């Protein structure tokens, strides 16, 4: 029955609210990738020689690598020579450090995105690093955090100001040669966030980075490094948006987390890059490598992600559980609608004894969306009594979409235990009728069912963001129901 399908279909169409472009004068390198481009990026950032060497080594390695093809996604070949690898809004002064020196257009952009950078206006207790195209334009609350000994700054600043920490930890979790996109990132990364929490410190506020792509034909290649020293705790959140454009844009980020003995890192992502239009034109290609190392005993890393944007999402936030009794967690909600494709999941590598991991993945597919969960749980020989529990649930809205699950399990220790559960369900016309018969609109009904489905993941988000995530999911799945 045609009319039935339409009613579901209108639900999953909605407008992307963050699709505007900021008209700002920018300093952009011409498209193309070469040693000379990398030297120019490094020079613009006034980097030390060791940094440039690392980049060039990565570039040489990248030239010998192939674009991976194993993921359940389809896209035209990416022309890496057509992308500009550096674009920065022109600042009044090259070293704008206080908000007064930042272009008002930029401040207005972030306010429009709901992330005001003026400290008196921001969410209480959340410090923000704002990354615009290739550079960090502002970092709030730096002084307050410094008083607690916490370093929270752009990675460019960190390379200048804390070279020993950077040299010790950069690339220590995701080596420059790790994979095609991580390698490209190592060669050309332009900015990102650096966080260091000293021994025994509980970070006094939530930290967050807000990524914004603005310039056309550029890629965003940011690198985030978070180091939690012994016994420390930090909760970190990233958010991302981009203008609506007909061309695809590449976002290839690397995130590295290091948790030392008894440290805990909670990393949350709300990803809302432009997904492209209903026909699949435009949108961000989001190829991201995220990995955390639980280096010390009893360390704990937890990834929570809400992925609603991007034309293509390719990311597997992972945990390497070195330390005995260390814990890795992955909570994910991935939504695909229109022609979006997501291939996402996690890797839990159990090396230490009594290590524990939990995976909760919720995939929602609507329209022609394709949603894939891909995960690896590996119990190494030494991983006595290691435990994993995985739960992968898929929810289908309409009958044109797809959900796929690829769990890989490798167990080399007989005392280790791995559990995997998976379900697939569908929002049925009967469920919608039931809700509507009780006076609830179709939009509210879908949002209620979807939020119920995602409940387990949302409760892992910091409170302010859990509300945001619910709203975002509402906006993503609801549409102009007439």
């Amino acid at each position, binding site marked *: *029955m045609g*009319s*039935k399908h339409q*009613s579901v279909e209108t639900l999953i169409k909605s407008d992307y609210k963050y699709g505007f472009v900021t008209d700002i004068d920018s300093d952009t390198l011409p498209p193309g990738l070469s040693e000379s481009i990398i030297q120019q990026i490094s020079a613009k950032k006034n980097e030390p020689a060791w940094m440039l060497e690392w980049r060039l080594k990565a570039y040489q390695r990248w030239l010998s690598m192939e674009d991976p093809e194993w993921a359940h996604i389809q896209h035209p070949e990416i022309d890496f020579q057509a992308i500009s690898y550096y674009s920065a809004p022109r600042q009044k002064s090259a070293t704008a450090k206080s908000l007064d020196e930042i272009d008002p257009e930029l401040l207005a952009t972030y306010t429009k995105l709901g992330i005001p950078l003026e400290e008196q206006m921001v969410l209480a207790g959340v410090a923000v690093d704002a990354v615009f195209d290739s550079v960090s334009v502002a970092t709030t609350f730096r002084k307050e955090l410094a008083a607690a000994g916490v370093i929270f700054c752009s990675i460019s600043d960190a390379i200048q100001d804390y070279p020993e920490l950077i040299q010790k930890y950069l690339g220590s979790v995701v080596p420059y040669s790790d994979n095609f996109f991580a390698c490209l990132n190592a060669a050309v990364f332009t900015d990102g966030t650096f966080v260091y929490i000293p021994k025994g410190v509980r970070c006094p506020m939530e930290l967050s980075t807000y990524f914004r792509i603005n310039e056309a034909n550029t890629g965003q290649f940011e690198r985030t490094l978070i180091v939690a020293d012994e016994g420390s705790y930090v909760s970190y959140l990233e958010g991302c948006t981009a203008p609506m454009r007909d061309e695809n844009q590449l976002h290839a980020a690397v995130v590295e987390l290091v948790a030392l003995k008894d440290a805990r890192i909670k990393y949350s992502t709300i990803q809302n890059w432009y997904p492209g239009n209903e026909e699949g034109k435009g949108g961000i290609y989001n190829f991201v490598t995220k990995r955390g190392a639980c280096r010390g005993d009893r360390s704990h890393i937890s990834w929570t992600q809400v992925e609603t944007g991007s034309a293509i999402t390719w990311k597997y936030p992972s945990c390497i559980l070195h330390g005995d009794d260390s814990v890795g967690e992955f909570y994910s909600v991935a939504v695909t609608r229109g022609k979006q494709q997501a291939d996402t999941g996690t890797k839990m590598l159990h090396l230490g004894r009594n290590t524990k991991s939990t995976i909760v993945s919720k995939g929602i597919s609507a329209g022609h969306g394709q949603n894939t969960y891909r995960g690896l749980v590996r119990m190494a020989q030494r991983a006595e009594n290691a435990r994993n529990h995985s739960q992968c649930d898929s929810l289908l809205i309409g009958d044109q979409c797809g959900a796929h699950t690829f769990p890989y399990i490798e167990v080399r220790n007989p005392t280790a235990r791995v559990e995997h559960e998976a379900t697939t*369900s569908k929002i*049925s*016309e*009967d*469920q919608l*009728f*039931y*809700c*509507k*018969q*009780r*006076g*609830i*609109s*179709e939009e*509210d009904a879908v949002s*209620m*069912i979807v*939020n*119920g*489905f*995602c*409940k387990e993941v949302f409760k892992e988000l910091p409170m302010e963001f859990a509300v945001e995530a619910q709203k975002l999911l509402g906006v993503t799945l609801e549409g102009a129901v007439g």
Partner: protein
Amino acid sequence: MLSIKNLNVMVENKLILKDFNLSVAAGEVHAIMGPNGSGKSTLAHVLAGKEGYEVISGEINYCGENLLALSTEQRAQKGVFLAMQYPVELPGVNNMMFIRESLNAISRARGEEEYDAVRFMKLIREKAAAVELDNKLLKRNVNSGFSGGEKKRNEILQMAILQPQLCILDETDSGLDIDALRVVAKGVNDLRNKDRAMIVVTHYQRLLNYIEPDYVHVMIDGRIAASGDKNLALELEEKGYNWLIEETAA
């Protein structure tokens, strides 16, 4: 309150309701009986506005309005309630939250004050006790893992909370044991008053021992073949439907 005139309805290209007529006034309870496939559930679904039913001709007037011009949720907001034959499960959606959402959606549409948590808790505890629904079922997801009887009681609970104008019960008695039937009937009888009308669709006379109707109609092949009072139901119990089917065919 409700007036259905010459209603013709098709489902998947098959004519199910044929020149169907029915008038229901406030305060009345009408029982609709009939064999399987006679169109009883179709009538209930068309009144509630379920998709997949094509109204070819005819009209339905509800409280002075053209019911067919209203969306499903508008009908609900204006007081049409359908207790479903097969209440669906809503995984992940908390029962109590769902009922509150429903009550408040209807209150909002009527420009009435929404129920805050305290006021709502008081209301739902009182009504749940009346239909003997275990409080722990309120905390579960909507109908998830409920027994057949619990699902039906959950329907009556919602009806008691929403206080609709027109209650339609679609084979609410099917699959109920005698205790559940008694509880459901009590829930319905508690709601009977001079302003509220009820249409009770049932296959068996049994339910009518508990809910005494003002009128009994027998549907055969998409139209009402006979109407009467509760004695008609007793007659059917004795003689079955066949004599009416033969009469209709003749």
